């Protein structure tokens, strides 16, 4: 099977800038803080990172190394050894967003043979285990037999049956937990969608990023593997498959959230740490964005 990536795209790429900031507090002095940041634009056919202006920084400053992980995410690892009780992480970037071409090629699921590389997106990951959601997946998919119908059924079911509610779930909430509580945030709905698609043999992965027209916090959606068109997006939280590409700014992909959180890491301290504040902003009309713009988002907070 020839995998043909790309198709006709909307003619006008939209350049945008983004700024992200997070502040962490600690109950005692931290002597080492080692963080992995996945806050750089992903490079694919829907978006093209534009150089000059893609930056990550911390206060206090640390030493950084930038590398691609095995799924093509850009990782910035920053290690801070200046003693601190507060850590600020800021990221900015410029990216050209392309609209998504409509997906027309559907195929019966039974006729699709995915390769070995797709296997890891079919099996259980830490937070999205297909075994735990099979019954609900049957209900969601119903009599659908094709790839696009299956994905559409899952996306709509999650949107219609899971109540968007903050505060009841955490970074450790699994797809099974979400099914149980019938509520959660974008990350939880995405995990449930992933598990259901995997249960039907559709390779699916987690996407972390921003909604350009509703920034403020990071968003999560999913991608499923189309045998000819490659990875295609769908958003269970909003219940849609035909995404407007300029609405979404993608940072990283993984098997679920646990592999690609925007910030992860460890610190050495006698105390505890917590996220005190985080926000993000997207600018459609700016010529440049700097780390100072990201830090300015902290003002008043």
């Amino acid at each position, binding site marked *: 099977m020839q995998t043909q990536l790309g198709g006709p795209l909307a003619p006008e790429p939209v350049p945008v800038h983004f700024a992200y900031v997070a502040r962490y507090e600690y109950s005692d002095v931290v002597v080492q803080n080692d963080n992995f940041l996945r806050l750089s634009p992903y490079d694919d056919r829907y978006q093209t990172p534009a150089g000059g202006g893609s930056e990550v920084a911390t206060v206090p400053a640390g*030493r950084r190394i930038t590398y691609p992980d095995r799924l093509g995410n850009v990782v910035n690892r920053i290690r801070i050894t200046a*003693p601190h009780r507060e850590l600020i992480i800021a990221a900015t970037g410029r990216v050209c967003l392309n609209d998504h071409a409509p997906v027309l090629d559907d195929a019966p699921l039974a006729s699709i043979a995915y390769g070995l590389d797709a296997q890891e997106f079919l099996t259980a990951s830490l937070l999205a285990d297909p075994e735990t959601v099979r019954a609900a997946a049957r209900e969601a998919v119903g009599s659908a037999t094709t790839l696009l119908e299956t994905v559409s059924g899952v996306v709509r079911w999650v949107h219609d049956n899971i109540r968007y509610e903050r505060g009841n779930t955490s970074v450790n909430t699994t797809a099974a937990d979400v099914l149980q509580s019938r509520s959660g945030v974008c990350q939880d709905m995405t995990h449930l969608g992933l598990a259901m698609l995997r249960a039907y043999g559709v390779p699916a992965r987690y996407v972390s990023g921003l909604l350009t027209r509703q920034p403020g916090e990071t968003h999560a959606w999913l991608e499923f593997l189309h045998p000819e068109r490659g990875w295609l997006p769908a958003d269970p939280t909003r219940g849609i498959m035909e995404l407007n590409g300029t609405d979404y700014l993608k940072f990283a992909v993984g098997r679920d959230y646990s592999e690609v959180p925007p910030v992860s890491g460890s610190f050495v301290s006698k105390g505890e740490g917590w996220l005190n504040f985080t926000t993000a902003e997207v600018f459609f009309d700016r010529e440049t964005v700097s780390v100072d713009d990201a830090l300015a988002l902290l003002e008043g907070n």
Partner: protein
Amino acid sequence: MLTDTSTAGHPLNECLNPDGSVKPVYRNLVNAIDSLGVPELQRRWGDANHRAALDAFTFMLDPREFRTVPTDWMPRLIPEGEWDVISRGVAQRLKAINRFLLDLYCGEQEVVPPDVMYSCQYFNPELLDYRPARDVFVHIYGIDLVHMGDGRYVILEDNLRIPSGITYQMKSAEIGLGAIPELAAGYDIIPYDIRAAYQEMFASLCEKDSPVCVLLTDSKYGSAFFEHRYLSELFGITLVEGSDLYIGANGRVWARAMGGDFEVDLIYRRVEDLELFVPGLTEAYLDHKVVLVNAMGTGACDDKLVFLWVPDMIEHYLGEPAILDQAVSYDLRSPANREYVLQNLDSLVLKTRQGYGGLGVFILPDLDKGYRSRLAQQLIEQPQVFIAQETLDFSQHLVFDESSGEFEGRYVDLRVFAVQNGHGEVTVFPGGLTRVSEANSRVTNNSSGGSCKPSWVVR
């Protein structure tokens, strides 16, 4: 009496052939044991244990409980010819790893894939562009080997951060020879001088003459404190705790002491989180105000996944093939490898990337089915946490059961120690530390409850 035992059953016994006959190198030793006889052997074992207790030769997992290092005093014998291969293989590996670390931090490394290398917990971005004294990262190296028979040794693991155990190699041989000198009859045991090698290594790393060196211990209640005390006394260097050290106004490391604080040139550190023990030490180190042995950053090659690329490091940096083989290992980032491992769970060992001291090692054939399937599930969910290795059926040795007066077979490994000084010279200390598994286990680790055995290289 030794040959009467049924322990010859294991096909890879170091001492006995499968038919129960004694291997040539062990003949003198077995004769000596036979002529001492069981009651005398029990008495001598008691004497050796008594000497160990007198000297507080301990590995204490609980500081309230006095526990000497469990030792089987019958030595393991390594013929000089076999040792020569081990020794060259260890030195080769140490040099290649050191070259790699230098490239990793101060140049461009192309051997290990970036996502493997830079995601490693012990890779330290802060050390980029920092050259340690005399370009030596790995001053003290501990390598775990198993014997596959016929003099073929296979590497299981590298220990590059704070390798421990050389004292057990020395002290077990010293006590054993003291209590049962008859066992050495007919053997020419190759000697070594770790005092000279370490002192020379310390001196070669410092700019000035007669540098002041200290050994930094975690605590007198730590499990390896015997070793810290023994080595500091042997080398004539001061034993310090973290609270003794501070960074002075001149940016250098000072030790608090009666009769006046003093400046420290080199820290032989036996702790991992240096900054927790001595705040500001990292900065002093990066300013070249103090030498650390081992250097910071060596843990990058302690990672069990990075281990897979060490043979490539040897080829790349030394332009020669690896002298010693290492256990066949699987990178579980590859879908094909994951598939293979899931199909062959009952013949593999799973290790977590960051484990040490026998922690995070799962010998799947030795586990019950429920445990195995839970691990399989974890492997599917988080393959990046693990590597898999082929299970090796390595050698056994005989250990004397003092109460029954019989010998029985137990699995043994071999941890070999080497030092590298500032002139790039490597010394591999003949013998190493033989660690003995508990009955019915293949895990040979002191932290996991195993015992040890003196090991002699003999001519």
